């Protein structure tokens, strides 16, 4: 791209770094330094209640232990499953809501605020909320099913092998679908009208218009949402911890609940940090995957979004 001559050319090389330096400073202080510390502890037998164990270098023993630990790998796999299902559901539901709200012209501001309602809920609150909704004995859900005569069983939502994971996914999806909806709505707003009109004139069905024009245009926004969500998906920890604590019998154990239990309850911080490092690699993989998808989609769209 041709750049018009600017009198500041000489300073240009430094300016972006200067502009970025505050961001770097904060992130180094709050994220990078602590990470270096926990990387170090992951090679020690550090136990929280015995400060002197911080100097107890054990090499890669923590990693060897967790790599040989079947429970860890099951939690690892379950976390991937949890992320895959939750993110896809959030995308599909968010898309549906965005398309619906996009049709509304009058009173949209109110509807959009209502749409963002779940975003006002702290993850810890969402956890308690669904713990009480899914309680098998006095929970609202079973009570409603029983009162409506749909079912007279006390379904153990938080205990059953499949329902338990389903319930925590439900809570996570409830909390986070709004993020997808609002970003996809942004995409719909940014969408040029002309190609759609043209396609309609050419006799395309609404489905064809959606499939071949709207959806490709929305994909960058979808990937933005996916990337953003995979960035902070670990806050689902609060929800799972309150709802099931990873139980029963490890049926809803995700990496984050496992790490917290090992690190704090068992006070084995060294081992917990080794697990945390493996989980960070997982997050990075997810984020990187969506990010490259995003870059590709952007290129396809010619730089929109």
């Amino acid at each position: 791209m041709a750049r018009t001559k600017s009198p500041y050319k000489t300073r240009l090389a430094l300016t972006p770094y200067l502009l970025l330096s505050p961001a770097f400073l904060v992130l180094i202080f709050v994220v990078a330094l602590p990470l270096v510390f926990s990387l170090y502890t992951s090679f020690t037998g550090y136990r929280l209640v015995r400060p002197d164990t911080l100097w107890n270098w054990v090499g890669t023993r923590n990693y060897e232990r967790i790599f040989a630990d079947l429970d860890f790998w099951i939690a690892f796999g379950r976390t991937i499953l949890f992320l895959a299902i939750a993110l896809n559901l959030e995308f599909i539901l968010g898309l549906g809501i965005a398309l619906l709200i996009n049709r509304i012209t009058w009173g949209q501001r109110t509807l959009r605020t209502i749409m963002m309602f779940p975003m006002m809920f702290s993850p810890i609150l969402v956890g308690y909320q669904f713990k009480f909704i899914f309680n098998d004995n006095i929970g609202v859900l079973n009570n409603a099913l029983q009162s409506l005569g749909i079912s007279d069983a006390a379904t153990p939502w938080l205990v059953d092998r499949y329902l338990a994971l389903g319930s925590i996914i439900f809570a996570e999806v409830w909390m986070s679908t709004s993020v997808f909806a609002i970003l996809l709505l942004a995409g719909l707003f940014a969408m040029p009208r002309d190609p759609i009109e043209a396609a309609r004139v050419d006799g395309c069905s609404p489905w064809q218009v959606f499939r071949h024009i709207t959806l490709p245009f929305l994909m960058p926004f979808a990937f933005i949402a996916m990337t953003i969500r995979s960035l902070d998906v670990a806050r689902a920890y609060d929800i799972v911890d309150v709802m099931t604590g990873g139980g029963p019998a490890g049926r809803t154990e995700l990496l984050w609940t496992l790490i917290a239990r090992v690190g704090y309850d068992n006070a084995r911080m060294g081992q917990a940090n080794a697990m945390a490092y493996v989980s960070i690699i997982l997050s990075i993989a997810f984020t990187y995957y969506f990010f490259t998808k995003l870059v590709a989609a952007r290129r396809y769209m010619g730089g929109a979004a």
Partner: protein
Amino acid sequence: MSGPLKRRIVAVATWIGTFLLMLVICLPGLWVMLTGFRPNREVLAKPAIWIPEQFNLNNFAKIFGFGAEQIAIPVPAYFTNSLVIALTSTAIALIIGMSGGYAFARFRFPFKDSIFLGLMLSRTVPGIALSLPVFMIWSRIGLIDTKLGMIIVYTALNIPFTIWLIDGFFRQVPKEMSEAAQVDGCTRWQAFWKVEFPLAKSGIASAGIFAFLTSWNEYALASQLTRSTDSKTLPVGLMDFTAQFTIDWAGMSAMAVIIIIPALILTFLVQKHLIAGLTFGGVKG
């Protein structure tokens, strides 16, 4: 002649339909808010009591210390802390984000993509892995249980997303506009404030509301780094309703109402800018 009327009826029907659907989606949350006005005995009853027999402000009275049985929960302090921490960290994150987003949108420099990705990835570190090291560093420099300590952490939490969003918005402002201003004799700084900033303002507002909601609702780190009414935030205050053996769910729900309402009002107020910010892309297309 019934054409416009029919269209209006369809529009109203669509609105009502969408509204009802949104209500269904919000139902689990609305249930929490209703619970805040009902006593535990009714909420946790079996068989269920669907039509509230008691609907009052008792839970709120208890929280503010008017009830006999429970010691007041220092809501005003939590509220002030939450407000100060969320607003300040949002403001700082926006300033840093604007500066960083501008760098990414307007400059080419070596390793740009890797640096961008690196910034994003800093957000992938789970709070549970950060909490102990941050705690140890914070305690060495006296930031534990201070609002400043929380503000710094939340700023870091919000920077990646803020940079990203603002980068996107700056990129939608045609570069030619700022260059034209510079040709007219503005400095780059002036061009930024006079041309690019006003156009990206709405985008900044939407980044702001996301950052605010994140800070307002964050629990995992706040529960570790705050200790007393000097810095405890509202979500941490929710745990005041849990004891060793019991959870005062109705009380917690009442507290939830106190947390949610301000965020909801703020979102509604910013909504206009959000719309403007989001439709801006359409102007370009």
